[in-house]
């Protein structure tokens, strides 16, 4: 889902016009983003550990 698509569904949800499928898709997308962020932070921590040990 692109940033623009996410924004459109987000706006629809704010107006309570999103269908159950759209709600589900948005939730899945946000979950994937948050999981991705957690992976990024884990990578950052690992790289920090390596540079701290050098």
């Amino acid at each position, binding site marked *: 889902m692109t940033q623009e698509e996410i924004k459109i569904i987000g706006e629809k949800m704010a107006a309570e016009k999103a269908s*159950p499928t759209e709600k*589900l898709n948005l939730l899945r997308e946000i979950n994937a983003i948050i999981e991705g962020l957690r992976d990024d932070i884990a990578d950052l921590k690992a790289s920090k550990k390596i540079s701290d040990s050098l």
Partner: protein
Amino acid sequence: MKENKFNERIVSKDRLIKEEKNLGGDIESLESDEMINGEILKESEKLGVNLEGLQKDVKEFGNEEELGKALEKNPGIAGRILGRAAKIAGALVMFNAVLVGSLAEETHHLNFAEMQSGDFKDLATTLFKIVAASGVISLAYEGIKRAVHKDFEKESDKIVLAMIKGREFREKKGDKKRKKEKKEK
């Protein structure tokens, strides 16, 4: 006379088939809505767990300074985080919060290709703000969950009604069949 009765029977049989098909369609669509609502609940719960985890991860990292420095040393990861933060800002439009508004502005303002040294600290700040906003996100999704529960109740009422209708319909159909068989005997 015989021909008329025959025609009536054909018409009524067609109608029966049509009604049965309509009812089947109604139940099918309700069942698929129920399935989607079930998935929404599962995803909402998963989101709650993910947000808590993200909050913990970011806090464990220390402060914005530390995170900013680490991001600056790892521009590849910083680029990925910026992309995801911008998407989250888009999704947060629905929450209509000041914090979210400023978050959206920040992510739009940060252009990865032109990021300067100080911008990484801004990105770290944005990440901390996402974590701060996670409470708002959780609350909003609690609202969705509650709405879904209400829909569930409404939907299950509809399904029960449709099933009662279906049973009555089949009973009537069976009655007609039995009467017909009796007559034939």
